């Protein structure tokens, strides 16, 4: 098992997406094997993520100022990767939901559960930094603009999913319920986005949104891309850590349930982990 090249092979297999990729995923269906994999990969990945983010932010800091926006354009190096990850994370959750319902992959609901708070956090970062960027540039912290509104709705849906995870005690049942809601949300998100855009364009014509223009100079683009890669690595690091914690906490839960259900035949000296 070539652990170190897991992400490399994942990208390589894009064109022959299918069997090999699924076999790779199935190999990690065993939580113990997954935990071993995490143990090996986590530290290098974390270091790589920190290094890349540091490089991206440094390059963003020394990058030339935008001729119109001045120094505030540097918010972009956090804002854009966070916004991108907020959507990437929901896509990952939707794929995990398919994994739960269709393939019954045992780690799929762990992945979905672990991803929800991280996605919510990135969405919140995108909203907050966007708001802080909007104040000097547009003169307002908030505008009922199509994109901002749909990101806000995405945030509410993340919160709803987290609430549903917390509301159902049994993790398997919770996983299924959340998977269905995630998929319904995945169908609805484009509809919401489309309708919000339509609603917005009805009431207000083209606004200051296109201030930056469609083309972006390479001197700004390179730090942005590096920063985006760094944030993505950070996401995977956090996601793996959260998945590891979720697996471990489920094991503890099982042990406690077993201990609670077991007849009291052991010696009284052992402390019951319940209560």
């Amino acid at each position: 098992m070539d652990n170190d090249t897991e992400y490399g092979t994942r990208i390589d297999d894009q064109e022959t997406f299918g069997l090999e990729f699924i076999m790779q995923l199935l190999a990690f269906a065993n939580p113990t094997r997954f935990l071993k994999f995490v143990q090996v990969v986590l530290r290098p990945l974390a270091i790589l993520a920190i290094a890349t983010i540091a490089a991206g932010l440094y390059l963003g800091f020394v990058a030339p100022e935008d001729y119109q926006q001045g120094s505030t354009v540097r918010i972009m190096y956090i804002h854009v990767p966070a916004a991108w990850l907020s959507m990437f994370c929901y896509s990952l959750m939707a794929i995990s939901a398919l994994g739960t319902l269709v393939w019954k992959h045992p780690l799929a609901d762990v992945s979905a559960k672990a991803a929800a708070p991280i996605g919510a956090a990135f969405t919140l970062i995108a909203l907050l930094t966007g708001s802080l960027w909007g104040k000097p540039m547009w003169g307002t912290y908030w505008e009922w603009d199509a994109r901002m509104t749909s990101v806000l709705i995405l945030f509410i849906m993340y919160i709803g999913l987290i609430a549903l995870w917390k509301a159902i005690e049994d993790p398997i049942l919770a996983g299924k319920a959340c998977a269905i809601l995630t998929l319904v949300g995945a169908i609805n998100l484009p509809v919401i986005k489309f309708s919000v855009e339509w609603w917005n364009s009805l009431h207000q014509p083209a606004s200051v949104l296109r201030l930056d223009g469609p083309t972006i100079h390479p001197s700004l683009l390179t730090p942005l891309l590096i920063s985006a890669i760094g944030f993505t690595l950070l996401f995977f690091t956090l996601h793996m850590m959260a998945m590891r914690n979720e697996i471990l906490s489920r094991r503890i839960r099982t042990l406690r349930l077993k201990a609670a259900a077991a007849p009291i035949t052991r010696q009284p000296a052992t402390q019951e982990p319940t209560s």
Partner: protein
Amino acid sequence: MQSRSNTSDRKLHWARALLMRDIRLAIRVGGGTLIGVLFFTTVITIVPFGLGPDMKLLSVIAPGILWIGALLACLLGLDRLLQSDHDDGSLELMLMSGRPLELIILIKCLAHWLTTGLPLILATPILALFLNLDAAQLGAVLLSLLVGTPALTLIGMTGAAITVHLRRGGLLLAVLVLPLTIPILIFGVATVGAASDPLVPALTPFLALCGLSLLSLAIAPVAAAFSLRVLQH
């Protein structure tokens, strides 16, 4: 499917029985059909207290207020969709009956809409007087509610099926369902706006609303039935 050599009328006899049962349960004592309309009326009535009795302002915001009131009233009734059937065990019987669950869901939605959505629409003309809504706009509001409220029930049914096993799912249900109903609200209000605004093509938002309703008609019964099957113990 245990389709025997019956006429199609006999085959769907159970469907009519289920529809009548749900309607009877809703309109008799403890059903709570009137509470939705009462809530709707109360919400509309308190709006002038909050905004001041400016008839001009009220007529401008009336379509939005009516739509938000209808949306809230629909949300209020969602926990009645499946909760009592789940509590007294009849939902289990329906699951085991061997009838197509999607159709059962659809019939329950129809019964719920007839006892929740339809009374709201019937109450709207009277409430429109309070809000100084003119006749053309009232027609547009009624039309958009007629097309939009079934979609609210259908989307709500999906949420109700997901949260039916929760002990206190009512509030969570509202939180989960509300973001999904935003497009309905947007196009519902836009339909009314387009009716009075010569700059906007009148039919476009209405057709979009129809499309959304049809989309939820296609997705919601399948999603709700799927989650009921998957989540049963």
